[in-house]
């Protein structure tokens, strides 16, 4: 475990020493603040709109950070050959995958805390409304969804040789699932025989990332999600994450690393 955490620590250090992380955060903050200070700020609807835009930006930024970081990890190790001195230590390839995953995931967690705290402060200062448990549920589920995405991207980085190709493919899959994943079953009903089965199969096997997107409870002041549902979603995310990481390990284990 200590080995895994040591590897994760390096991932986090790298991330906070790079600039893009801050750029995204500052961008999200700026856009939200500019919108908030627009002329029509006395309209009560505008606050809701503001929250909605802010949360959308948070989702986009977090996905960008997650994919960008995870796609780079293992290819960069091979490229700079740091993988060689690392694996020459008593470290297994499973340690490397888990360490990289945890590093990316913790880093995203830190980013999420910052993002959601910012959203909460912007909203609280305008409406004096502090639904802390709502924020907790939304950010927790968001974080769980990111775990699935990161594991998927790490798996992708071992399948596709070019990190940029992997990042693009994963972005398309993730955005596709987020937008369409929930509607595939209704789509399936309208398909002719062979296609409906295929669509249903896809519907059953894809990780339903859209379940982790509960921005609506914040935007529309909906009641809290049932805690057992949150728990179930967490277990669901863990199952997919574990599957992707296991597949990644199967591929990485056999991969010859030559200079």
């Amino acid at each position, binding site marked *: 475990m200590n080995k895994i955490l040591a590897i994760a620590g390096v991932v986090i250090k790298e991330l906070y020493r790079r600039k893009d992380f801050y750029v995204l955060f500052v961008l999200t903050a700026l856009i939200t603040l500019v919108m908030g200070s627009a002329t029509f700020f006395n309209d009560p609807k505008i606050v809701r709109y503001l929250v909605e835009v802010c949360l959308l930006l948070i989702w986009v930024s977090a996905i960008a950070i997650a994919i960008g970081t995870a796609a780079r990890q293992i290819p960069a190790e091979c490229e700079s050959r740091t993988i060689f001195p690392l694996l*020459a230590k008593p470290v297994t390839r499973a340690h490397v995958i888990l360490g990289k995953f945890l590093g990316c995931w913790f880093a995203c967690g830190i980013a999420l805390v910052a993002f959601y705290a910012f959203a909460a402060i912007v909203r609280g200062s305008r409406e004096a409304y502090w639904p802390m448990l709502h924020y907790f549920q939304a950010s927790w589920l968001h974080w769980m969804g990111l775990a699935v995405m990161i594991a998927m991207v790490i798996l992708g980085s071992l399948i596709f040789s070019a990190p940029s190709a992997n990042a693009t493919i994963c972005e398309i899959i993730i955005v596709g699932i987020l937008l369409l994943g929930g509607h595939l079953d209704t789509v399936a009903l309208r398909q002719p025989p062979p296609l409906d089965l295929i669509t249903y199969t896809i519907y059953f096997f894809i990780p339903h990332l859209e379940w982790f997107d509960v921005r609506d409870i914040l935007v529309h002041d909906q009641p809290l999600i049932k805690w057992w549902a949150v728990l179930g979603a967490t277990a669901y995310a863990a199952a997919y994450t574990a599957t992707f990481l296991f597949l990644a390990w199967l591929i990485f284990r056999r991969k010859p*690393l*030559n200079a």
Partner: protein
Amino acid sequence: MEPILKLEDLRVEFRSGALRHNPKVALRGLNLEVYRGEIFGFIGPNGAGKTTTINVLLGFVAPTAGNAYLFGVNVREPIARQRIGYLPELTYYYKFLTVEELLRFYARIFGIPRRETDRRIDQLLRLVELEQVRNRPIKTYSKGMQQRVGLAQALINDPELLILDEPTSGLDPIGRMKVREIIQRLKNEGKTVFFSSHELGEVETVCDRVGILHEGELRTVGRVSDLKAQFQTDLERIFLKIIGYQLNT
């Protein structure tokens, strides 16, 4: 005596592209044993297979046939690497870390306790003379300084066996001398060193035994003094003769 490093009919083929049927044979049946306390020099022209052999020893490349053992443990097991130090050929370490953070990271992987880590880092940075730059990111180091970072990380776990791939490449004359001194000192401490090199003069001065590799075959293995007595000339000429290079004298 149990050899510390052992190769048994080691054969490595590289297949470029899944369907191409003429694999590149990098090693053709290597047999070698290195014993405790020895300094073994591994020499051969570019492309002879030195790095490939070392990659097998570290488990980066799986042998096509044959076996490799460290401390009697097959190199497929990660535990075989607990007591070795490895210096890769040309490496860039995590550029955004400082040398101190890098060593701390590797020490943590070995599970070295905190106080001991502090002590070793101070000692190693003094040894490779990187104390002045210990708080600067590695990306600001020169090539020779990076090579010394490599040497320091190879020694962090106080290894019993060191595997060094061209340890003096990129170093200035003083740096080379230092590396020779370090190797000598490790020998005095009873450590075993296995290293590849193109500097025959250096190999001649520090090695107990040498192996000459050519086109994936180990042509000669022996004590430097025995080889010199046998061929009646210096190591450089022996080397050239064994790889079949005609000297016009």
